[in-house]
């Protein structure tokens, strides 16, 4: 199982890398490698497929498959979900990013945003490989698998969607200036980033609340202003601000896109926070 875990982790890394390279290639030589299938009855109804696009999708789906395999192989060894150290979190986080990236690609028929997410996922997988930790048993505080599993599952969905939202916001800022025809329209990118916050925000809320309820059971206190707790509150506040800013005239666009980027930075601070500060979440 340990062999399978490492093999599929490396395989996912390779698939993500290929997917990114193929997509960049596709962007650079847009329109060169397309196959057009003409409908014989109706000439207007022809479909064209871009080979790099299809290859990019196939490889990102493959990488999702391999990460899933890694998580399963790891789970068989540890006997629990990916929630005991940074190595396991990083893998779960990138699973969330790629899964949500594929969902948004399917929903909005554009893979551009997913590709930004893939870059983040790639860095996380590299981080995981560097950080690789042998399976270790759970210390007493972590022996609360129901709440903990829900807590981490919410984190995967929330952080995965917000990373996609971050990708959309970054592309929005570029598109708003460049008006590139290779990128989706600014309006679509704005809609995508909003949709990501709409999906992710309830999960982020559940993440924090489940954490607080569990802290009360394990340590006898809902909230102790532990740095990681506070950083997650900052993340929540930034996205709450985003949702309210959307309603204000004149804020939609550059300013809200910047808020998403700030929110994503807060996620990174929360995620890597235990390297910076000490506290209840002082695992490595």
């Amino acid at each position: 199982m340990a062999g399978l875990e490492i093999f599929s982790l490396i395989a996912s890394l390779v698939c993500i890398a290929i997917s990114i390279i193929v997509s960049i290639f596709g962007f650079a030589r847009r329109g060169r490698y397309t196959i057009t299938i003409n409908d014989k009855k109706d000439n207007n109804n022809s479909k064209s497929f871009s080979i790099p696009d299809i290859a990019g999708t196939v490889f990102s789906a493959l990488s999702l498959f391999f990460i899933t395999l890694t998580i399963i192989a790891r789970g068989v060894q540890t006997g629990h979900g990916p929630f005991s150290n940074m190595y396991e979190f990083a893998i779960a986080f990138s699973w969330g990013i790629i899964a949500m990236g594929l969902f948004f690609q399917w929903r909005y028929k554009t893979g551009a945003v997913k590709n930004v997410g893939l870059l983040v996922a790639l860095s996380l997988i590299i981080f995981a490989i560097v950080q690789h930790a042998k399976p270790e048993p759970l210390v007493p505080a972590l022996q609360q698998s129901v709440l903990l599993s829900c807590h981490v599952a919410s984190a995967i969905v929330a952080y995965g969607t917000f990373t996609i939202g971050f990708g959309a916001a970054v592309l929005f800022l570029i598109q708003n200036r460049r008006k590139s025809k290779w990128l989706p329209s600014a309006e679509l990118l704005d809609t995508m980033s909003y949709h990501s916050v709409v999906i992710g925000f309830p999960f982020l809320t559940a993440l924090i609340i489940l954490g607080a309820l569990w802290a009360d059971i394990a340590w006898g206190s809902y909230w102790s202003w532990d740095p990681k707790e506070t950083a997650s509150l900052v993340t929540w506040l930034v996205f709450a601000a985003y949702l309210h800013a959307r309603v204000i005239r004149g804020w939609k666009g550059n300013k809200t896109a910047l808020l998403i980027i700030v929110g994503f930075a807060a996620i990174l601070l929360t995620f890597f926070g235990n390297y910076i500060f000490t506290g209840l979440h002082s695992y490595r």
Partner: protein
Amino acid sequence: MWLWRLFSSIKLALALILLIAGMSLIGTLTSLSIFDSIWFAIPGCLLMLNILICSLNRWKGIKLSVLGGPVQQKESFYNAGDNYIELPPIRISNSEVEKKIELLLKSRGYRVRSKTEDNNMYITADKNRYFRLGTYLSHFSLILFVFAFIGGSHFGFRIANLEVPVGSTAKVGQNSGLSLQLISFSDQYYDNGMPKDYRSQVVLYQNGQEVRQATIRVNQPLTYGGIRFYQAYFGPAAELQVQRNGSVIFDGKVPLDSTSVSGGAVRYLGVLDLQNGLKVRLISSAENIDDTMIPAGQLGLEVLQDGQQIGLTLMQTDTPQTIGNLEFTYNGESQFSGFQVSKDPTNTLIWVASILFIIGISAVLYFPYRHIWVLIQSGKQKTCSVTIRSLPSRSFGNTTEMSVFVTQIKHELQIPEDKN
């Protein structure tokens, strides 16, 4: 009133949220104790006030949408705002157009109401109107959290360190009449030395009567009458007897609850307070360490009167020693378990607020409120023109919802799609 207008502004809410976020960030990155300070409480209170006033202000509109509101609006209403569309004139009777639009709206899950007046037909259709109330659930549960937080610290109590040596009983205090006896304590480890389990076997007494027997573990607190006992920490204890002029003034176990590191040796330290300025410091060496000062199995004793050392000695078990008029007997090593005891009457409130909070946020975001207004006017030569407006225009996905709906209508009414 300008103050009311200020507090009903969402811009103020945004500014306050970002201010609190910024302050929390500073609190995280530095070790400033900002969270108990007034500078954190002020924007927090202002935000609560802001939420209350915004909620009150929105009530009229939300009530209207929940109850239904009027079917007909002024003609100028239908082509106002930024999310409306006027279809080109069509040669179908307006009652037939109305029927088709109504069917389409119903198939998309809308509640449809219509009205005819002076050859004009008005349709109003809405979806997820009850989910709009979710905004109250989420915002009020935020306020509930704050009340629970304040209430918990005023009406409850928290004892961070109730230390009970094995075999001893400790009073909880706080007028609870409770006392906790520790029967046994065990700490288990995995093969690699990582902690596996801490368990304290306890008996709880109320006014001397046994009320509960339990095993307290991490993640498994003991709850009795709203008071909860958590496994917090543990350590060694020394069993000591002290006599003054032949009479026993202390006989029991002293928790060695702090550690000191000096010259590379880790030692456990406990203090026994014998009152009137007389204190005894007990020092033992940590396990598995070759300590030259305090050999394993022995206990270092330092006697202090008003902070001045009056005696220092090393004790072996069952060999009494005399310092001044005091005689000490060390009866061996034992263990203590440290509990956190807390009473939080707002516990249920927090669970309720948590559930309402998540339900409220999910209702608003996952079931967005939609409202479509349609005006069908009959024109000259048996044509009719259709104007469709969707509200609220800035709500998520409404432009998408509107364009899908309009495409379907055009298809139904056989209006060719625009090329642009």
